[in-house]
């Protein structure tokens, strides 16, 4: 082995790892460096370079809100997955429980864990418990919401109208200030929203945002929401058969509108469950297709 070959091999050592087993010839190169003062000096400088450079890259700091944004997105996706599972009987998203989950408490009896797990109840039993829990929780929340709506009329002041440019489209507007906080009301449907829309007769002010959803779930890049486009809004598409669920997340601090208007370009919002919630300064809008149960 020549010193040049030894340099190449030694340069492959990751910072702080001088015995990497994946580097062929490393032992011989180190041995050569031991008896070669020039090579030793070069390697010391190389190690210093690598450690410094690695440290510099490690000092790159992600934006403060990135982690929270990812967590919110994940929570929304899992929630939508649960809604889809409840409606269609599809399997909800199930994440692997790897080393990262060791500190987490064990899965509850009603688990989303692998159906093949012998410690879990059978899929049928889990589904039954799961539905029972959801319906029970839904009943309690529904009672609470009814009381809330009776006590505070106009909690959802929205309006149903026809879009001026695309007359077959149905528009809905919701005052963001009145959007209920999470957790949402299980079972809330577009019929509920339509009822409150029709009762509210809130004006649809100029500048209201418009979100357009095309049939089949694709969202064209050219859709404008006033001065915004869809790419400026966190937009998730959760696969669900032919009509995926759309989830839009608006940062309330950045969204310069008092109302958000939903537009469904297949002309019939009855094809979707629309749910809108707020949490931590963000507005969540979920359009979940109504899928026929298998």
């Amino acid at each position, binding site marked *: 082995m020549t010193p040049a070959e030894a340099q190449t091999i030694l340069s492959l050592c990751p910072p702080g790892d001088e015995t990497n087993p994946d580097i062929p010839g490393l032992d011989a190169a180190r041995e050569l460096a031991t008896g070669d003062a020039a090579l030793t000096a*070069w390697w010391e400088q190389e190690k*210093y370079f690598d450690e410094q450079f690695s440290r510099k890259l490690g000092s790159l700091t992600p934006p403060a809100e990135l982690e929270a944004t990812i967590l919110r997105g994940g929570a929304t996706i899992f929630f939508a997955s649960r809604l889809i599972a409840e409606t269609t009987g599809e399997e909800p998203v199930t*994440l692997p429980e790897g080393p990262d989950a060791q500190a987490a408490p064990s899965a509850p009896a009603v688990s989303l864990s692998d159906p093949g797990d012998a410690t879990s109840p059978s899929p049928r039993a889990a589904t039954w418990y799961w539905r029972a829990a959801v319906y029970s929780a839904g009943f309690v929340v529904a009672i609470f919401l009814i009381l809330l709506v009776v006590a505070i009329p106009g909690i959802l002041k929205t309006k149903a109208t026809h879009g001026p440019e695309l007359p077959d489209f149905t528009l809905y507007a919701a005052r963001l200030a009145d959007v209920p906080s999470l957790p949402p009301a299980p079972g809330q449907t577009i019929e509920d929203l339509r009822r409150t829309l029709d009762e509210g007769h809130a004006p649809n002010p100029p500048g209201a945002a418009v979100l357009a959803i095309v049939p089949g779930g694709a969202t064209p890049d050219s859709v404008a929401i006033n001065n915004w486009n869809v790419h400026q809004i966190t937009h998730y598409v959760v696969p669900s058969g032919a009509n995926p669920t759309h989830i839009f997340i608006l940062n309330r601090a950045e969204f310069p509108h008092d109302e958000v208007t939903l537009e469904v370009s297949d002309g019939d919002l009855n094809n979707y469950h629309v749910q809108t919630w707020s949490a931590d300064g963000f507005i969540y809008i979920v359009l979940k297709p109504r899928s026929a149960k298998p």
Partner: protein
Amino acid sequence: MSRTQSLNFKKLVERHFASLYRFAYCLANEEQTACDLTQHTFFLYANKGSAIRETHKVKSWLYATLHNEYLRQRAAPHIEHPPPPPPIRADSALTAPENVAALDGPSAAALFAKLDEAMRAPLALFYFQELTYREIAEVLGAPLENIQARVADGKAQLKKILAGRANHI
């Protein structure tokens, strides 16, 4: 989402989002794109993570997904794995300590934009020390020897760029 699911996801994000962001930043050299790539990677994990049966491969899956998404967004042609470069005779002058000490995080990451595309990902993963060589090879879908050749070649390029940068200052 069950509490366990939520905790799993939260722990995974806490543990890996920063290093994934750094990897994305080195690839894209732009903060917003790096954020989008990182966020999209976890979005895909939230949707498709259930397909990963070997839990010890979750980390590799995240890096591979981010890298694939980066290539997809760039609509880059498939990167042909180059043949191993000839042995490199590193120039001591190029590794002058002051050249590295003068860098901060963003300027160090910005150097990756000047590297050949094929060198960026392996060299970034080499410096992050999150993955072994074998895992890097798996993430990038290339043989181990090829990855090591790209790391060696990338380091040589990096030093030349650094030296040229220092000469301009």
